[in-house]
């Protein structure tokens, strides 16, 4: 009987942990959304055949490369911190610099990974690379998305809230219209 009681108590503790993990994910997201600074990352055109993978749009950030004279020291999958800034004219996010150590000062940065490096260019893999959509909306959005990416007059960007290296996707703007409101 005692073993049974211990098992039940341990199971209750486990159940709380199992609920707490996704709950923490939501709490972290809402905290970053509320307190984080929004940055607009311009989206680059992607493979024309299939921007949609399953149930999400592939997002490729245009501002994802930086020139560095010692590019060869940056290896694929290295963890880095991207210091961000905003363009004064367009308001779009741009990369100020990249560092290996987490910045201690009060600046905006995002934790990311190195995609590749060659010659004097370092390419970055940002953690926000997808936007989930409902299946029934997919064909319509895919057309608008693909067309908008090819039109150089249209500015399309992903709004990402950033705080203390963490980033969450807020909204996707295509041809000036919010995808959150389009649904």
């Amino acid at each position, binding site marked *: 009987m005692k073993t049974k009681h211990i098992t039940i108590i341990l199971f*209750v503790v*486990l159940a709380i942990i199992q609920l707490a*993990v*996704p709950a923490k994910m*939501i709490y972290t997201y809402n905290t970053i959304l509320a307190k984080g600074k929004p940055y607009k990352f311009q989206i680059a055109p992607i493979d024309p055949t299939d921007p949609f993978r399953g149930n999400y749009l592939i997002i490729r950030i245009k501002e994802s490369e930086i020139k560095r004279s010692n590019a060869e020291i940056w290896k694929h999958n290295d963890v880095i911190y991207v210091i961000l800034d905003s363009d004064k004219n367009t308001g779009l996010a741009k990369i100020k610099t990249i560092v290996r150590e987490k910045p201690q000062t009060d600046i905006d940065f995002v934790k990311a990974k190195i995609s590749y490096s060659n010659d004097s260019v370092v390419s970055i893999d940002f953690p926000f690379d997808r936007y989930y959509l*409902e299946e029934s909306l997919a064909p319509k959005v895919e057309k608008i998305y693909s067309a908008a990416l090819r039109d150089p007059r249209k500015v399309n960007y992903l709004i990402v809230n950033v705080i203390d290296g963490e980033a*969450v996707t807020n909204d996707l703007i295509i041809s000036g219209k919010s995808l959150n409101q389009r649904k």
Partner: protein
Amino acid sequence: MIKQLPELVRENVISQEIADKIAEYYQSKKKQGQNKLFLIFGVLGSLLVGLGIILIIAHNWDHLPKNIKVALAFLPLVVSQIWCGFTLVKKSNNPVWRESASTFLFLSIGACISLVSQIYHLSGDLSTFLLLWMSLTLPVIYLMNSSFASLLYLIGITYYSCESGYWIYSNTEPNYYWLLLLLAIPHYVGLIRRQPDSNFVRFHNIVIALSVIICLGTLAQRNSELMHISYFNAFGILLILEEYTFSTHMKFKEKSFGLIGFAGTMIMLFSTSFDWLWNNIFHKHHTTSFQEIIPLTISTLVVVALLYRCQIKEKGNRLDPIKLTPLFFILVYIIANFNPTIPVILINAAILYLGVNNVVRGLRNNHLGIVNLGLMTITILIICRFFDTDFSFLTRGLVFIAVGLGFFLTNYSMLKNRRNEN
């Protein structure tokens, strides 16, 4: 049988008391069979419901407000936890309840995390998601004493290891597969002790063996050729464990180990029988990492210990030579550092020896299957050499005819002997 009992009693073949005992015995067997059926249906039902929920996740219902979506994301998890809780309180001795509830909980954990990620557009590696999912499942195996959850967990960590070790190029994140596997072993050992002949033990044997074989390659770093030794050791261990007595209270028997071990060993031998491999790859010197040395050392020690124990038990009897292949390959690998040609000769000779040994053993024991296995080994060896030697077509043709005739004559001779015996 039961229907014939009254007749047997009437004819005084057996007494009424014995007839009752026989009837009681078969009734209990029938009940066990029914229990197994309930268990299978219970687990299948949970699996299908859980998978159905995951498929609904894929639909991605956008028209609902976020808070409703979040509530629905948590719903299967909460329901499965209540179900498990109720099972622990009221039905802890009922395996159908335990296994079904645990299976549903396993799937609900994955569904909840992936749904929340989708609702909030949270990106992340598949390997990180799998690691989190399996970590939250591990305690369920022990608290619910669920073998099906254990099997799903083992499959899950195998997938995680492949994702982390093979499919992400140059992954810098550590691979926790071996730790996760170790943490599941106590349940497996307990299962062997309590129900040595159960189907769950058999499934665990196969899943664990295949999982280790699949994930062993993730340890390869700078000197992946060294992993050949670890693989030979792994297959050798399976061959030895096919039928092994750990103690008077713990005997192990698993036919599938013999099959996997044999097939794996032969495939490894055939693949290393080509000279270009030794000349171009094995002969070159590579640096080695700690990560490659550890499995090599541990697996070699295990093989040596098991073989030593086998030899003591077998006493005068000869060990099956294929079980010595791991040690043989280590010797060959060492020789390769000095001369890359000798290993090729030795390995081909070993394959030929194993083939001939099986033919002789099959003839002695009048076992056609073993004879044909031996002949097949020799045939495959010849086919392999067909592709990397410069013999003329005539020579190759004559050799093939000779082997083919060998097949026919051996089979004919055995069948004739059998007819004569009958």
